[in-house]
């Protein structure tokens, strides 16, 4: 189903916002104004935006770890001020400043990021089961190519298909996991080929094309809501930079090829989307300039909110009180 112009404009706006969020995080980690690490999403923000922008309010969203989920945050309407406050250990952080980068917004059905890659393949079964019982909701389960090495991925696909659970397995395949290339880790270049063993419908799409991603996920979501079970959507994307800021950019033990990385830059999703919205007269250059201006203002407001919030240093007694439900 083709997207309407309004939908395309919204996707474009969210993509530009997400890109600004990623750049904000890069700047901050370089300046020492972020807690923990940062795994840059540079050149790979389209997949998350496309996958999350048209989810329903009831849908459960598990963000991919790259860019610490900010593409998904942009699409989901997450309060990025509270997100950044969390990532800087502040009182107004979404988890009271105690989670570092393990953010969650349960009220948005975003139950929590984790530093354990592949952890979500466990609860996704229950998210899917509960969604089926309740009806009118589904699960977008995003993760990377690397995460499909986890045995839990196979258990989740087995359960999802056996029980026809309303889950979209959304794989951002950037061909890398830290220093390992896809061919080091998987016998087949397409991760979605794993779904075939379970008889799960699977598609491979261009993850650099925010519009293609959105169209595919909308269709997969409808399939899920119609009771037809899970779909595997593999979005081919790329990794322009090192795995996380400060770690050398290697393929196995060798530096990644500079020329190859230059080639990848031609696939920048912002450039691709801008060309298209202009060509199809979805937006004028003036409107695009306005979107950029607003994104900058939004980032400034986010940073101010987080920076103005006091450092979270509750007493041990207060922390102890948070361990159990009273």
């Amino acid at each position, binding site marked *: 189903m083709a997207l309407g112009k309004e939908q395309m404009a919204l996707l474009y706006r969210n993509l530009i916002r997400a890109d600004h969020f990623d750049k904000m995080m890069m700047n901050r980690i370089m300046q020492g104004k972020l807690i*923990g690490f940062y795994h840059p999403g540079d050149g790979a923000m389209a997949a998350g935006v496309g996958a999350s922008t048209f989810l329903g309010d009831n849908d459960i969203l598990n963000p991919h770890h790259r860019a610490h989920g900010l593409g998904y945050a942009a699409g989901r309407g997450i309060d990025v001020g509270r997100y950044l406050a969390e990532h800087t250990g502040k009182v107004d952080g979404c988890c009271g400043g105690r*989670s*570092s980068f393990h953010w969650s917004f349960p009220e948005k059905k975003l139950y929590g990021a984790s*530093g354990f890659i592949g952890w979500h393949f466990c609860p996704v079964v229950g998210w899917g089961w509960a969604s089926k019982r309740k009806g009118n909701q589904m699960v977008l389960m995003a993760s990377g190519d*690397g995460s499909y090495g986890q*045995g839990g991925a196979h258990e989740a696909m087995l359960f999802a298909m056996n029980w026809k659970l309303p889950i979209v397995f959304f794989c951002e395949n950037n061909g890398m996991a830290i220093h390992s290339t896809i061919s080091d880790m*998987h016998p087949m270049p397409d991760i979605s080929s794993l779904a075939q063993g379970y008889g799960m419908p699977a598609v491979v799409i261009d993850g650099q094309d925010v519009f293609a991603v959105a169209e595919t996920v909308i269709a997969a979501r409808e399939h899920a809501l119609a009771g037809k079970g899970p779909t595997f959507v593999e979005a081919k994307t790329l990794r322009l930079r090192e795995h996380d800021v400060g770690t050398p950019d290697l393929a196995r033990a060798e530096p990644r090829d500079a020329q190859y990385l230059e080639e990848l830059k031609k696939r920048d999703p912002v450039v691709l989307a801008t060309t298209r919205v202009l060509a199809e007269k979805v937006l004028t250059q003036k409107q695009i300039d306005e979107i950029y201006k607003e994104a900058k203002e939004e980032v400034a407001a986010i940073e101010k909110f987080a920076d103005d919030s006091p450092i979270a240093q509750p007493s041990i007694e207060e922390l102890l009180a948070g*361990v159990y439900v009273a």
Partner: protein
Amino acid sequence: MSEVRELPLVEAIREAYRQEMERDERVFMVGQDIAGGIFPHTKGLVEQFGTDRIVDTPLAEVGMYGTAFGAAMEGFRPIVDFMFAGFFLNAASPILAQTAQFRFIHGSQMSLPMVITAACGAGMRLGNEHAMLVHNMIAQVPGIKVCMPSTPYDAKGLMTAAIRDDNPVAFIWHLGTMMDRGPVPEEPYVVPLGVADVKREGSDVTLVANGFQYKNAEIVADKLAGEISVEIIDPRSFSPLDIDTILKSLEKTGRLVVVDESWESRSTASEIAAQVVDVGFDLLDAPIRRVTIPNIPLPGGHMEPYVAPNPDAIEAAVRDVCR
């Protein structure tokens, strides 16, 4: 005698890998991204030993661990690297339920010579998953040994001992000690597992501390010097635990503070306290104090410095038992 060369702790570990792999063809390493390296402990090894012995795996802890487990039964001597110790929990079932208890339950016929290693520890504000110390979770299970070095010297010696040991050994190392420099002899040597070390002699109080917390203990001992004479004991191994060295120290001091970067309940600190009360009750002139993480998941953000054991908390405990 010529002066002993100094190395950072992480390079001392690497030297043990290198020397033991040169010495014994059966030794190999398996882990994620160890050829390229996440921490420098594996740097340069793939160039020397090739991909048959520096084995990168998919992002799959169970399969990765399984490589080591099965190969050990077949006579190899694997070192399996979990990167961050929290990730070890993904393979907790095969490690704790199988490997550790395997030999005994199968009639003590087989040996499983393998090293399970990972970095961990508070200090980088990464939150519970990455910082979590797992030594006590492992040490509770009989059949697997557990150690953690505090100095580069101990790092090389303990790792060498772990590789040569015919039992599964968990060698955990603290990120806060990674770049600490200290003397490390060039020739291979062993620091025996299950033997504590008196790192500093003193007469008023016995302070047990290990890993990064050993450094905090030294800070406190320096600060109190002239006022309270602190004896620092580094247990080096959590299992087996060398209680005799601690008891011997208590004969002199009569006072005990145990620092353990772990939850207060059911920790090595608790275990040492229990054993001392059991067999050394008469040696005590004061209650035992444990300096640990309160029973809360270790938060990230800005809370690590005061939730994890720290010099202030250690000093307060030492002063308390010396009142």
